[in-house]
């Protein structure tokens, strides 16, 4: 079983490790403590203090906040329950004019607005571009990844979380609340 120093993993994460060494890491048996070491690197770079339970993207992390598990951006911006699509609490920009489309898909690369929305999801805190979607108008936003953090920590890492959490998608519940707000004119 391989083992790597945290400093070397930090270089790997930042794309700074020599390619020959990266290839060795790809080919060798995997290190069993990778998750813990990477979390520790992310934790040292985050603007928040809550413990990271799982990285979701380079910017977004599931963290433990009191008895809850919420999504936070590394800038500290909070997105709520990790079982709700974090996009519901992001800011969004849809490229719809020729000029806007042309600046990222120039000339013959330009999509057709009737067939496609280019949706950019930003962090309201730091402005990081968290995800982009190219989908026809009307398509629900993808909820790309919903991890089962309870099973992962308890059964795969053998280190159960302090608070148990059910693996379920709560996005619909939030939206149902929004629909009620609309009905009541909020």
């Amino acid at each position, binding site marked *: 079983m391989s083992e790597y120093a945290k400093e070397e993993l930090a270089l*790997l994460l*930042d*794309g700074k490790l020599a390619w020959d060494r*990266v290839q060795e*890491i790809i080919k060798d048996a*995997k290190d*069993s403590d*990778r*998750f813990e070491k*990477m979390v520790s690197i992310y934790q040292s770079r985050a603007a928040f203090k809550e413990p990271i339970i*799982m*990285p979701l*993207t*380079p910017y977004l992390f599931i963290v433990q906040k009191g008895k809850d598990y919420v999504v936070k951006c590394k800038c500290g911006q909070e997105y709520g329950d990790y079982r709700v699509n974090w*996009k519901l609490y992001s*800011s*969004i*920009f849809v490229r719809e004019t020729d000029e806007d489309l042309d*600046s*990222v*898909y*120039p*000339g*013959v*690369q330009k*999509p*057709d607005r*009737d*067939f*496609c929305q280019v949706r950019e*999801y*930003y962090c*309201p805190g730091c*402005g*990081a*571009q*968290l*995800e*982009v*979607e190219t*989908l*026809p*108008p*009307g*398509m*629900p936003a*993808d909820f*790309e*990844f*919903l*991890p*089962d*953090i309870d*099973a*992962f920590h308890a*059964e795969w890492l053998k280190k159960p979380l302090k608070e148990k959490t059910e693996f379920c*998608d709560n*996005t619909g519940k939030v*939206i149902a609340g*929004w629909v009620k707000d609309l009905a009541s004119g909020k």
Partner: protein
Amino acid sequence: MQVATKSSIQQSLAEQLKEAEEQYRVTGHRYGLKELKNKETDPRTYESVWATLERVCEDACVAAVNVAASAAIGEAHDAVWGIATPTGEIVCVSTGIIGHFALPERFIKWMIANDYDEEPGINPGDIFENNAPISSIHANDIFDVVPVFAEGELIAWTFGIGHSLDVGGITPGSLVMASRDLYTDGFITVGEKIGENDKIKKEYVNRVNTFTRMPFFFLLDTKARVAGCHMARDGIEKLVKRYGVNKFKELTREYIEDSRRYAHGRILSQTVPGRVRRRSCKDIIVEGKKTITEDQSRNFIMLSGMEMTIDRNAKITWSFEGTSKWLPLGVNNGMAGLQAVATCVFCQVVGFEYHNSGSYGDLKLVDAPVGSFANPYPVNPSAPYGSPWAGIMGFMSIGYEMFSRVYYSRGFVEEVMAGTWHCPGIDVSGQNLSDLYVALVNVEMVPGGMGSRAIGDGEDYSWGCIYPNADSGTAEGLETVGPYVWLARRLAVDGGGKGKYRGGLGLNSLYMIWPAEKAGWTLTDTGITNRVPHNNTLYGAYPPPIIKQIVGHGKEMKKRIDAKQDVVLSREDPRQPGLLKLGEGNYHLTESPILFPESLERYSVIEADHGGSAGFGDPLEREPALVKKDLDHDLTTLQTARDVWGVEARYDEAKKEWVVDEAATAKLKAALLEKRKKRGVPFKEWWKKSRERVIKKDFIEPVSRMFKEAIELSPAYSQEFKEFWGLPDNFSL
């Protein structure tokens, strides 16, 4: 060749298969093998026999590709040979096309389900062939299987698969998209016994000679597949002579269970449990074009829905809810196509120790919605499938992306690969240098741009999701066969998904029609999009762009040749493609597909845009040094550097290189970040506005139709759609 006795199939194949499935269901181990007895007690024999099996498969492959006539097999190696158990599970395979290696399992299981051991009978020397959707992805990918007997018992199958360049479909070539049904897809054998006593039947040869355009090529390809099967059979017989039937059977089963354990271990140690979900679309623009039937003459959007769940026991399920309805064009794929996706994705990003049916661990492949383009056959047994990579490539890209997300969350950033290429199928038919009529597809599309890594850009070319090969034959080799020549080939400027790390760029090639006086070209599909980029990307990068082919007219090119003007008009900038220099009226832009061959005169040039791959991360995080490197190699433009990556640079004429203006870059990046903060609106506001649009059904007809059909086919997607927009259950589009 061993001789069978009447008692050779004591326990019927159906009984053997039922037993194997029950053993797996009850124990969780293939064939109920809780222990790998041979591996543990006699590892030397275990590894030695495995090495011999690999050699047997590879020898068959190397010899057979040299027998084949089709350039797709001979030059591009679009073929594979291997060995399966009596019940169809794959034991070992040669190098070659990854996407097909698992599919003979479906064919053999289909023969078992259809009582082939009773009728037509399975005897030594038999040759069975299939290219129907039972197991084949499209008619051009043809499978032959040969039974191997020892001591009167069926102990294995050998198989060979190869891509023939023409199968007599309604249009010439490899990717028939105009077809309205299977009947226009070409020459199809449905699990047919095409040979006995090791000899191909005369009536099969007659049929090929009558119903295909290039029978000489087709028949040599058949001989190549069968020759490889026979070579592999000889190798097995030698092994059995040395080790005995029982040992051979034990070992072949252990290799499969061993692989299952390896894949399962990788999932458990490198991923995290949970649900990954993606929806992606591609358009097919047919309105106003020549078609066979009226229902083809519309624009379509194919919606690929894909979800992966990894449960607490590290068992994986793939499902395809949301996938839209089958099309009256040759772009459908059966479940065989989705099996091919799983095969490629697991092979390349999960990895393997022994490459066989165990390599997908405990994957459960749920049938796609019945009636969708990914599973049309239960409701439409004649759904056309001439160019099925149209849909398959969307699923393929999502497959890589899904695994990348779980690797990233576990910390294995070096295993991330954002997706794969999407490209056109360009079939050109006409006379070649030997004055033979040939249809040749642009096989160079296969090794394309690779998805971005989490730690660097994707490889720009020579990466094949369906081949392990780094190339698909030499242009010079292909020129000796085809009716066109290569004028030039270059990396596609800004061809990949733009992000912190960009996707592999892929190629732009210029094909000139020559020596053919006239050639016919069709523009078909291995994932090409015209109007909506595939929704495949990671963490803030833009998905790779749509793909645009341009044709420069022969008369104008000839004038340039005579005037000794430059004819290598490559695409140096997507804003100003090179062929536009021919002037208005001397070129035309195309949208896929071109269903029926468009006639091109000699010297016409096709600019083939092969498409790049998905990117990774927020583009504003891209290191200016990487942007400079791309500028220095003419792989991006200053305008893109500014607009997308926020990098300001100037060209130093003296040093002949680009220099980044660091202060101006910092200022530009800050300005672009500020712009985002100003223009981004709270998601809830956007949701409210978009919901109104959904309620008003304010979409173009192809978008409405796509939603309507996907919702009708898939109750799960219907619920997801209505829940997301907060719509009542009885809402319809």
